[in-house]
């Protein structure tokens, strides 16, 4: 019932054999013959593996159809270069017969595969769970060999194309193979150089952010789709280069050369070497694809069954992959993250010094003082207990520091014509008949803290989602800084200064704390394709500025000593502060905080509260969703109460506490 036979899904040969047509006689020694083949395979595999690593290892795109892009490059090269007739007749006479110059054909292969890669990337428009996407791509790979195999007109079906001209035809045949090795080696070096520029700078950081958490990446203004398309385009282009070089060398190309197992072998090389590590990929590719899978082809047959050796090869690769996924998922060479120098001020500081001493003894008013460390340091050095006067002084200094770091945009807006930074009018959203938000309207005046409270299920988080652009409203409008942003994508709102945090913290786990902040810097010139390729000389100065801002934030929040720790290893409270600092790196005009104090110790919650005050005083508005009503009362001039999707009432917290409506909503609703 299952269509064509096994040739498609089950490959006897792990790698395409060199075409028998090209070398009926060997002008070079057997050693040189095999050595050049293996070297060219390793080189082309490396180019492909770096491309797949850029997609899968760095950006987290599970492209299990990668070999299809290698194939599209090989076919493009073949179809363009093969002449109008051949001694075999048949398919080749039917083709364009272009005899296009090899160099042009290689460029065409790169372009076609790159465009094809980006096209497949467009399926990412529909946000699917990554394993769904991986499975779909795997099935594309299953099916593609069958479809091409059934097509005899252009690709000559299962027999494939042969007599593909070698791009180095002008080189004497006795030297051609070695020159080819040299050309491939040079292209490998060029590829590595380019790939490193893409993966090691600010662009690579942004790509890794997309990999670690795409929603959080969107919330800090990254265009997830744009970055993925870029990567899939580049990955496709590298695949195309790899395919064209391979087809040009072996002189033949057919569906048996690009079964889905090829992608999985590349993937295993990456997993073994180290996901996201260009170095690791070299090790994995050379060991697995070069030494092992090429090696088994030259072993003698076991028990008169030449297929058996390949079967064992795949069994071993399968076992190896699973073993690595279990025992060393980060691979032989784990991805390395850069360590940055940070201030020494509180290195090795004890917990008692960082937490719990935030406020001077019995200061009743909750004026801002952000940096516990600075203050306690001073207290310690002067030997005086922190008193009120000192407190104010430090608070003032912290405020200035904070304003300098995060409020450059908010300050320029003081003169703007609008009074409200955010105007929400009649937003609604229902899920399958349940109205999560039902024509809710409220405003946030510039430079103020507005609370948004209500019982569970009142629609607060959905409202926040609509305002930040993560949820599309069924009706209503959102106006931010005088501009209607209802139809604006979430990442564009973030770039404009409308920044959210998440109720459950979402950090980029495999980036360090400091990198989590750096990645949020907006309009980093090193994040464009051009900027990344231009290198550190182009973006280094700007990076220093962002680094300075990030360091100041870390110091203000008292977590400098954790700067180089991977975010996944931070504590819950530190992750919350990370969320907030990351949002501040975007230089917001309005910050949407979704329960920033939930589950925090009093000391850390106080610090968050202080930060809010600091922000207000620097002109940044805050919309605060919070269940800790005492904090809401202290912070918010105006409080909006939601219940069952509606805005019930708004006003000052003190008055709301006495309101019957509010009490009923909390206790009945």
């Amino acid at each position, binding site marked *: *019932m299952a269509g064509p036979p096994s040739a498609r*899904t089950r490959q006897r040969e792990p790698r395409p054999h060199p075409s028998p047509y090209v070398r009926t006689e060997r002008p070079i020694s057997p050693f040189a013959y095999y050595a050049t083949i293996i070297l060219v395979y390793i080189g082309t595999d490396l180019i492909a593996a770096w491309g797949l690593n850029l997609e899968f290892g760095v950006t987290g795109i599970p492209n299990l159809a990668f070999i299809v892009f290698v194939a599209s490059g090989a076919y493009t090269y073949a179809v363009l270069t093969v002449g109008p007739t051949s001694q075999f007749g048949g398919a080749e006479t039917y083709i364009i017969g272009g005899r296009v110059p090899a160099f042009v054909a290689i460029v065409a292969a790169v372009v076609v595969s790159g465009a094809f890669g980006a096209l497949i990337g467009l399926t990412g428009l529909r946000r699917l769970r990554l394993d769904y996407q991986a499975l779909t791509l795997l099935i594309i790979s299953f099916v593609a060999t069958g*479809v091409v195999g059934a097509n005899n007109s252009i690709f000559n079906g299962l027999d494939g194309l042969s007599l593909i001209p070698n791009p180095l035809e002008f080189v004497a045949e006795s030297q051609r193979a070695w020159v080819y090795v040299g050309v491939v080696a040079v292209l490998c070096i060029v590829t590595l150089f380019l790939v490193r520029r893409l993966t090691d700078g600010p662009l690579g950081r942004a790509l890794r952010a997309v990999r670690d958490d795409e929603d959080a990446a969107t919330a800090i203004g990254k265009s997830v789709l744009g970055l993925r398309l870029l990567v899939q385009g580049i990955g496709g282009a590298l695949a195309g280069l790899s395919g064209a070089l391979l087809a040009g060398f072996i002189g033949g190309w057919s569906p048996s050369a690009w079964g889905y197992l090829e992608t999985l072998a590349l993937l295993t090389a990456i997993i073994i070497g180290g996901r996201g590590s260009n170095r690791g990929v070299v090790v994995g590719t050379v060991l697995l694809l070069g030494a092992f899978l090429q090696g088994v082809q030259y072993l003698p047959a076991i028990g008169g069954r030449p297929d058996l050796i390949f079967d064992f090869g795949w069994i071993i690769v399968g076992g190896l992959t699973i073993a690595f996924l279990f025992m060393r998922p980060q691979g032989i060479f784990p991805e390395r993250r850069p360590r940055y120098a940070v201030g020494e001020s509180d290195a090795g500081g004890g917990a008692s010094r960082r937490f719990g001493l935030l406020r001077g003894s019995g200061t009743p008013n909750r004026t801002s003082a952000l940096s516990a460390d600075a203050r306690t340091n001073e207290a310690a050095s002067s030997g005086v207990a922190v008193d009120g006067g000192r407190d104010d002084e430090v608070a003032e200094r912290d405020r200035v520091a904070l304003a300098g770091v995060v409020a450059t945009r908010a300050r320029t807006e003081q003169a703007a014509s609008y009074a409200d930074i955010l105007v929400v009018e009649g937003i609604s959203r229902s899920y399958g008949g349940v109205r999560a938000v039902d024509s809710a309207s409220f405003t946030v005046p510039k430079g103020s803290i507005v609370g948004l409270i209500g019982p569970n299920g009142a629609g607060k988080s959905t409202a926040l989602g609509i305002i930040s652009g993560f949820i599309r409203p069924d009706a209503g409008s959102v106006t931010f800084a005088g501009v209607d942003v209802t139809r604006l994508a979430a990442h564009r709102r973030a770039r404009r200064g409308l920044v959210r945090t998440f109720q459950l913290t979402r950090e980029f786990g495999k980036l360090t704390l400091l990198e989590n902040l750096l990645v949020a810097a907006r309009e980093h010139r090193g994040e464009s394709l051009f900027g990344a390729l231009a290198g550190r000389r182009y973006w280094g100065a700007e990076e220093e500025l962002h680094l300075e801002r990030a360091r100041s934030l870390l110091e203000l929040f008292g977590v400098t000593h954790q700067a180089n720790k991977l975010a996944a290893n931070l504590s819950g409270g530190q992750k919350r502060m990370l969320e907030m600092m990351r949002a501040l790196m975007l230089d917001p005009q309005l910050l949407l905080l979704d329960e920033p104090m939930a589950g925090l110790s009093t000391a850390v919650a106080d610090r968050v509260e202080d930060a809010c005050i600091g922000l207000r005083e620097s002109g940044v508005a805050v919309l605060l969703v919070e269940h800790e009503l005492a904090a809401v009362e202290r912070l918010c001039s105006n409080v909006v109460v939601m219940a069952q999707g509606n805005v019930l009432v708004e006003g000052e917290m003190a008055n709301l506490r006495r309101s019957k409506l509010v009490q009923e909503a909390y206790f009945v609703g």
Partner: protein
Amino acid sequence: MRLLIETIGFGIFSGSLISLGAVGFTVQFGISNVLNVAYGAFITLAAYLGYIFVNDAHFSLWPTIAVVAAIVGVLSATFNRVLTRPLARRGGSFVAVLVATVWSGITLQYIIVSIASPSTFTYAVPNGTTVNIGYFVLTSTQLIVIGGAAALMLLFHGLLTRTQLGQAMRATAVNPVVARSCGIRIDRVTDVAWLISGMLCGATGVVLAATTSTFDASLGTTFLIYMIAAAVLGGVGQPYGAMIGGLVVGVSTQLTGAYLSPAYEDVAAFVILVLMLLAWPRGLFGSAASAAKRLAG
């Protein structure tokens, strides 16, 4: 007209088989949140085990189905215990678990090939007599398979709705954390779910191999595309969806084979899969509640 009806008849037969397999696949996803690509290789394994029983041990087809279903069921539960569950618990991402199941499937397939040789095999079972029902032309074996598959699905429906175990399975599928705190032993429920889905897989594999003229080690891999398409069509994790999805995929692939080219049968399944994923990723029977959960996340 005659061709159309005959094709639809055969489509219903192949569809009932796809449904049977797809229910197992979808149950594994529903209960463990794992897309188990090795499921295809388990189909292949069942086919070869059945071959041994039928051709070498001279069992007749029906007891073979029962025995192989039991064996594959146990292997399936073991597979989950030693591979997918521990990997997911260690914090392996969805993709890591998927890659592990893909490689497990390939490894199993090549183990089978290296033992059984890469040639093709045929079950020594009679095809059964041809039966004409109106324009439908089917063999008696095919009719029994359709009936048997329907009976198994009813049984499965009864299990899900009428028994405490079924209730526990549904609860675990919806929310394992809450299920656990309600006193459901979710590890045991998961084991049973993988056992049952493995049994469905085993039965499907034997019947599939017995009703195809010849098969080799790629049998399950190709069939997997159909089962996945059926599961996605019905909404992954939804057993009833997979039943309907299987019939739709069976009929539409057979129609493609008859009117376009047999080479495009799996392309048809694939097109269904991709269109569903792009247009309606939660499937025809995906609930609005799950949509809300995802979006509000």
